[in-house]
């Protein structure tokens, strides 16, 4: 839970519960899904007390809808990612089942994190649809769809790997896109190996547990050594079972890495949008230039470029001066329009770059801060784990009883 300025009010958001539900889907088939309780509290400045103002239930697909809306309406913003749709990077003990309680719990935390990120973003927090997401349970879906954002969405963005040949790419964005690709690749690799490491570590600890029974059985036939062996066996059992907590903490670290894996994708999306804008701009400029040339040719009568019209006039005779005038007029109108469009596109482009770059800087700082903290707490966690084990092994009492 954190605080933020939200339309001039200070509020706290939490995703406090998860509940299994059954219902009927769009095709009238029965389905099971999980619903999450979102609670919003407003904080009184004077005494810091919070009052519950809104509470409603949402499912994962509604979160997705919200995020897709934000992506379209704020193309220059690095939009916070949702927790993963399906469990990936699992190791053998971790379940890949979406209904598994551990998965649901981690998803609940992830969704809360998402809402907090949006609420603390200077631009996104003011969005009306976001506000309604938190406050209006029924009818929200319809409201979102009424904005018509799906139509606005550029279908070309979905083709992630399609290349658009941009003649004058902005170097900063190219570098950033490259960085986001590399970041995605390296974090994926890290998560994959980490999952294998967790698997192996689990194996090591669990086999130590086998000692427990043997030491116990052995202690039964010994006189003086009995107590010591019994303690040693017990200690092995404790050691073996400690791995469950250790790996749960590690899972939290993995989730933090995953968030930035998905953030890298959001970053890439901004770069793509810029690329598309740039492409459109260049296309429009190119189109305008060719129209101008056509106009000039008609006016002066010189045919410098090949055109079907030119060919047909050659073959079937010249057009009349009136016809030519008409065509010039049309072209001149188009050129005017084109120039207006180009002007506004240029303006849009510059605005986009300015805003995008501001958000990217903000994102960079956030990323550095968050990951630094995550790495430090990971290291601390490892150290405390070692301390616990070291202490257990070092218990003089255990072995001095032998």
């Amino acid at each position: 839970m954190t605080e933020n300025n939200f339309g001039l009010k200070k509020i706290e958001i939490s995703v406090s519960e998860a509940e299994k539900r059954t219902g009927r889907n769009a095709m009238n088939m029965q389905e099971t899904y999980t619903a999450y309780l979102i609670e919003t509290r407003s904080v009184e400045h004077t005494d810091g007390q919070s009052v519950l103002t809104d509470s409603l239930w949402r499912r994962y697909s509604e979160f997705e809808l919200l995020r897709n809306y934000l992506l379209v309406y704020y193309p220059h913003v690095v939009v916070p990612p949702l927790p993963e749709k399906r469990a990936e990077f699992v190791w053998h003990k971790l379940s890949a089942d979406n209904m598994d309680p551990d998965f649901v719990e981690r998803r609940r935390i992830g969704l809360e994190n998402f809402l907090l990120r949006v609420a603390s973003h200077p631009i996104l927090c003011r969005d009306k649809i976001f506000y309604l997401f938190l406050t209006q349970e029924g009818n929200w879906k319809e409201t979102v769809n009424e904005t018509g954002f799906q139509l606005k969405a550029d279908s070309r963005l979905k083709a992630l790997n399609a290349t658009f040949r941009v003649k004058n790419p902005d170097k900063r964005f190219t570098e950033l896109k490259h960085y986001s690709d590399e970041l995605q690749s390296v974090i994926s690799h890290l998560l994959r190996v980490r999952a294998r490491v967790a698997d192996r570590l689990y194996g090591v600890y669990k086999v130590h547990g086998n000692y427990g029974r043997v030491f116990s059985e052995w202690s039964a036939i010994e006189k003086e050594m009995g107590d010591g062996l019994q303690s040693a066996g017990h200690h092995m059992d404790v050691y073996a079972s400690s791995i469950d907590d250790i790996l749960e903490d590690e899972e939290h670290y993995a989730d933090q890495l995953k968030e930035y894996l998905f953030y890298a994708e959001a970053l890439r999306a901004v770069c793509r949008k810029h690329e598309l804008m740039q492409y459109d701009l260049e296309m429009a400029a190119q189109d305008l230039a060719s129209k101008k040339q056509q106009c000039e040719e008609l006016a002066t009568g010189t045919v410098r470029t090949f055109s079907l019209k030119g060919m047909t006039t050659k073959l079937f005779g010249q057009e009349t001066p009136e016809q030519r005038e008409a065509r010039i007029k049309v072209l001149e109108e188009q050129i005017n329009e084109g120039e207006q469009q180009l002007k506004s596109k240029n303006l849009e482009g510059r605005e986009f770059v300015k805003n995008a770059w501001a958000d990217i800087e903000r994102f960079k700082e956030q990323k550095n801060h968050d990951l630094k903290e995550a790495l430090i707490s990971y290291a601390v966690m490892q150290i405390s784990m070692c301390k616990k084990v070291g202490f257990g092994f070092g218990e003089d009492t255990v072995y001095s009883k032998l």
Partner: protein
Amino acid sequence: QDLILPNGGTPAGTSSPASSSSLLNRLQLDDDIDGETRDLFVTVDDPKKHVCTMETYITYRITTKSTRVEFDLPEYSVRRRYQDFDWLRNKLEESQPTHLIPPLPEKFVVKGVVDRFSEEFVETRRKALDKFLKRITDHPVLSFNEHFNVFLTAKDLNAYKKQGMALLSRVGESVKQVTGGYKLRSRPLEFAAIGDYLDTFALKLGTIDRIAQRIIKEEIEYLVELREYGPVYSTWSALEGELAEPLEGVSACIGHCSTALEELTDDMTEDFLPVLREYILYSDSMKSVLKKRDQVQAEYEAKLEAVALRKEDRPKVPADVEKCQDRMECFNADLKADMERWQSSKRQDFRQLLMGMADKNIQYYEKVM
């Protein structure tokens, strides 16, 4: 006679776990079981490879320091190979059948690709041979054995061995006599208990050995993954500006862990497993001694019965029976004494072993931090 302990000084009352094994070492030297002062010291070291036309083999230097009258010189230094140790053990078994002879490390290396001349293998073997001789040295009867003396002192052991071959046939016969299929009526409770104990003991050690091997295997697989994990952080740090340092730090830390873990598994293999195996071999040889004892008792009982049946009063037979009785009682006494000694040294060995293992683990985790 005041002796200078090799370690020098008095045991310090330190409580830090890292020094507990060394403390134990010092205590062991002070804590003589029978209260006798030590007058015989034997060490095995300095392995050397010998390449001859027919074969290649390793010899070890045996250094002996003693004030006993049985030794002409105060100090001896000879070279022996495994064959010679094997010969010695057989000789001891023959000449002291009522005593528990310590085990030797395994003669043949069964597991496929083990290099007989690798540093690891030679060192493990050297330690085991050193222990073997030290146990004999500690034994109040075995340490005075003639063959043992020759083993420690003779320049040319092979000549002595050949000499002994002639005697072998005679000794062999008497041994055969003892072990000639007599059926035992009832084993005295205490020896039955020892037999049961040894069975369970060997079983448990076997299980521990298997578990330890499995742990080592798992740890090695864990190590493989760790060795891939660390460098990924380095790759990442190359992409970053501000985060480069902490990422590089994590990478180095994981590299640290890997090295520490590798050392831990090596120690397990070199120190822990051989001791388990040694005690399993010990149990086996002890069980065969128990069988021999049973045979002696059986022979005695059979002879006694024969006499009772005959109802004659020949002086010859009672003497014969008496001899049997003597033999049996000797055997029992020797065995009991040896068992006690064995139990106590076993206790010390395992205490040292487990504390050593604990130490190593602590060191590992300290390094990792």
